């Protein structure tokens, strides 16, 4: 005797598939939940809609004019408001978009930028050593000079970090090209990278991929 009617069997099958779909959907949701925020490629809204495209791309201001400590500190540094005001005490002095900046500089309230790139607390990244050893800004930050609002351009996963630490040759640039936003690996990058690796005295891949290089 048939215990389950064909209709019930169908319902059970659909139900099982549904459960499976729910689990899969749940996994996707969970993955999205643990993913870094903001997502890659999402422009991050800021209190003052600061445009790198305008300042870097159009005006040609060097990265280090604002991110002063990028060459000698782990942190590239967010410019103090006085840096903004070197120009903006003269330019756009009444622009409404800059009202929060002026208020903050007058000490009325603080101006907080939303972080675009954030690493977990157990990862120790140092800007200065990457700059010193031939990794350019755009290798990780992308064409910042073309971003009206800054967005994250790298997944910042360990796999992504190790991709380069295992094979730095693919990204090494000559010292003159570090801050060049439009640098692209030339056709002979393999050969160039190999020569640059010797030039920069890079440590062994064993050290570059040791846990202790980034985690302590």
């Amino acid at each position, binding site marked *: 005797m048939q215990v389950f009617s064909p209709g019930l069997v169908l319902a059970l099958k659909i139900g099982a598939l549904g459960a499976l779909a729910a689990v899969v959907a749940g996994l996707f949701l969970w993955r999205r939940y643990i993913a870094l925020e903001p997502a890659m490629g999402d422009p991050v809204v800021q209190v003052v809609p600061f445009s790198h495209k305008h300042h870097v791309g159009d005006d040609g201001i060097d990265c280090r004019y604002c991110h002063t400590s990028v060459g000698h500190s782990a942190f590239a540094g967010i410019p103090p408001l006085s840096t903004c005001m070197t120009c903006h005490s003269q330019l756009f002095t009444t622009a409404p978009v800059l009202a929060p900046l002026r208020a903050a500089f007058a000490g009325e309230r*603080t101006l907080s*930028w939303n972080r675009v790139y954030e690493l977990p607390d157990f990862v120790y990244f140092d800007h200065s050593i990457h700059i010193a050893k031939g990794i350019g800004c755009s290798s990780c930050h992308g064409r910042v000079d073309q971003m009206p609002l800054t967005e994250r351009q790298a997944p910042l996963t360990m796999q992504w970090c190790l991709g380069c630490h295992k094979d730095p040759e693919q990204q090494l640039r000559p010292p003159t090209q570090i801050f060049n936003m439009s640098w692209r690996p030339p056709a002979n990058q393999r050969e160039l990278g190999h020569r640059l690796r010797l030039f920069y005295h890079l440590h062994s891949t064993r050290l570059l991929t040791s846990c202790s290089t980034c985690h302590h």
Partner: protein
Amino acid sequence: MLDLPPLMDRREAMKLMSAALALAAGGCAHPPLDQIVPYLEGQEGRDYGEPLYFATALTQGGYAQGILARSNMGRPTKIEGNPRHPASLGATTPIEQGRILELWDPGRSRAVLHDGEIASWDELMTMLTARLARLQTSGGAGLRLLTRSSSSPTLLALIDAVLARYSQARWHHHEPVNRDNVHEGARLAFGRPLEPVYHFDRAVTVLSLEADFLGCMPGKVRHARDYMQLRRPDDSRSPMSRLYAVECMPSLTGANADYRLALPSSRIGAVAAELAARLSRGGKASSAWLESAAADLDSHRGSSLILAGEGQPAQVHALAHDMNGRLGNIGKTVDFIQPPVEIRELAGASLAALAADMHAGRVDTLLILDGNPVYDAPADLEFARALERVPASIHHGLLVDETAQRCAWHVPAAHELETWGDARAFDGTLTIQQPLIAPLYGGKSAIELLGLLIGELGYVSHDVVRATWRQRFGDQQLEQRWREALRTGIVADSASAFEKVTAAENPTAPPAAHAERGAGGSDAAPGELEIVFRPDPFLWDGRYAQVAWLQELPRPLTQLTWDNAAMMCPRLAAQLGVQNEELVELELEGRVAEAPVWIVPGHADGAVTMMLGWGRTSAGTVGSLRGSSAYALRSSRAPWFARGVRITRTGRRRPLASVQGHHGMEGRDIVRGASLAAYRVNSGFAKKKADIEPPESLYPDVPYPGYAWGMSIDLTSCIGCGACTIACQAENNIPTVGKQQVLVGREMHWIRVDRYDEGPPSAPRTAFQPVPCMQCEHAPCEAVCPVEASVHDAEGINVQVYNRCIGTRFCENNCPYKVRRFNFFGYTPNTPILDAMRNPDVTVRTRGVMEKCNYCLQRVVRARIVADRENRTLHDGEVVTACQAVCPTQAIVFGDLNDPRSQVRIAKSSPRNYALLGDLDTRPRTTYLARIVNTAADEPV
């Protein structure tokens, strides 16, 4: 510290679980974006995120210890010694390390209190102004100031200004662990109070009369460094000093002495007297021990040193000065300066006078600046009761402590790292103290409070301190010299000039019986049991009780944490029929205290010792109700030792959390040592078979072509102070676990200091051995980790990868050195303010993760990046581990083993070099230099 939540019932658990589920399902939102707040103004020459070091000083008892305080983005995170400061030379004591936690302590007082209710600074000012107006008409009669002993020119000038304004007012100072006997002893010998300054780097023969110059005296860090200058057995040209110590309770000095004699404190005066007679008149001393010491001193005229401890009566100090004079040591191994701390009257007498006046109702307004006399005043002064008779009492301190609770007003104090000030070191050198951070909890400095008394309502500590120095430097040089003093941490050439001393009339030869009495102790019939009071090595007089790091740091000679005990020798314990941890009642002159027994080998017979600083009743959640207060028994007549204590058994027990349960080596060669004579004959004594020729190994040899980090620990230099343990704790964000967890062996220290007692329990020879992770090249922990959380990096450091660790604890079980620590619970508290204190370069570990020493990896990486940026290799000494930096005797050397000229390679080339448990073929990168003591060749080591 761990606080388990109360157990919940089933329904509660179900409710919480379902709530958590609902939240997990419904709250699928990301945490808010992190914010970056920019500075307003840029600072020239400062790199965003790089740590800054500020040269300043911390004081204790008025004596300054120079430090460099690290600030990460404006947050003080670590204290290092100041290499330019004479009391530091780059190292610190354990207490200074703990004071960063004292600064951030969330239990600190945050509000002005009036009768226990929250009040305001303005209310206090209103009250005080009205009161002072009335006082001024009477010339300030009834106005009293009580401070701790101070050497601060600014504070003393302010006190003088107060006294000038109110002619009838009086200033008192109180220091439970004071140096009255030292100053009085100099007065007996030379006619005026003076401070001895010792030069241990010139003293070949040293006799300590219960003077713990390595663990207790001001300048102890400097003393330890100087002392070890003459303890270098590998340098055959330099003589090796010999230290004789007479003491009751084993101290760091006694443990490091070549010859130690255990006597009750009250009998040490008689030894001094006999020695003085022997040295002046010749003949033979009554005991062989004393005779050999006397002969040794006699044959080292001008290069010997006799010193007495602060617990010994003034007469003993006078005797020591007299003997030094006879031996020609004054001006060579000991000099005298004006006491750095202000002593218009001795601290003990000063407090006693205040208490008498309070009892008599002659005190109307009492301002207690940073002190806790209700807790730590001698019991016979009955300070708490006296305080009830004072109409207006104002307490100023870091905590709402025992005294604050009994005063009408309480003002939260600013920490020394939060305010400007100045202070003198043990040799008189001045430091201008600078703050690292604005007061975290709204504390006020003593300067601001004293300003109120002289009618200055808006005193700012910076301006007042600068005004003091404007006078000293002169207007012209002020800016330049002020900046120089702040940059270097010392005022140039400010050490006190040595005084010319001449013996006072008839200073010497107090009869033995006389020396036994006096300011130190009370006299009683012989045969009676004696009680000795010593400051706790880490809580000191109790003022650091709220600092969990100091609570959990094992005491060097008892290995006890979180508790104190009545300490006695094995023979007395057997005689009383008591065992460890049994609670006994101690009764002295009608006063009673209760404490558990702890048997200490090497303690003098006929005496029991208690550490001061315990049994606080109001020191926050960390410090309250831990241990037993010895102040209950301590009287102003006998502040250091007293006879006639009666001990009765109670039959109850209080478990004591000791981190080491066994102190014998059981015939194994864990600490290897020899006498100097034996070492000269057989320099390779420390080498065992495994050290000369490593056994065959199944593991392949891994090459380390770049840097190969290694460490050498010199057991001849290690004095066992424990500074390395707590410096490591501060640097590496190591949590404390609390007494219950220590009792089950779960302390987290990455470097521990083991103590071994060899020889008879009545007179053992003590050795200390710091044990961090050995960084084995053939690491047993790595082979058993199922997830490769324990691996070697490219420079040979055995690293622990927290994110991989799943907490099997196999590695811990397979480690022969027992240096791995497991987070059984989330020991790091979720306290936002303490997050700001932690070292941002070191990951905070979570529950279920193994951790251990990694040679301060963060410092290695940071230094390597700096060198790589400059395209050069690291210099030797560029990477300094936290334990190495803090070590007063530089016993720890760290560096690159591939660099043939590195200090660590040189150290390891010593014939004394050996590996701990080397026969296991773990090939440790950390090795030891065997311990050499300067005894006769045939004596056991």
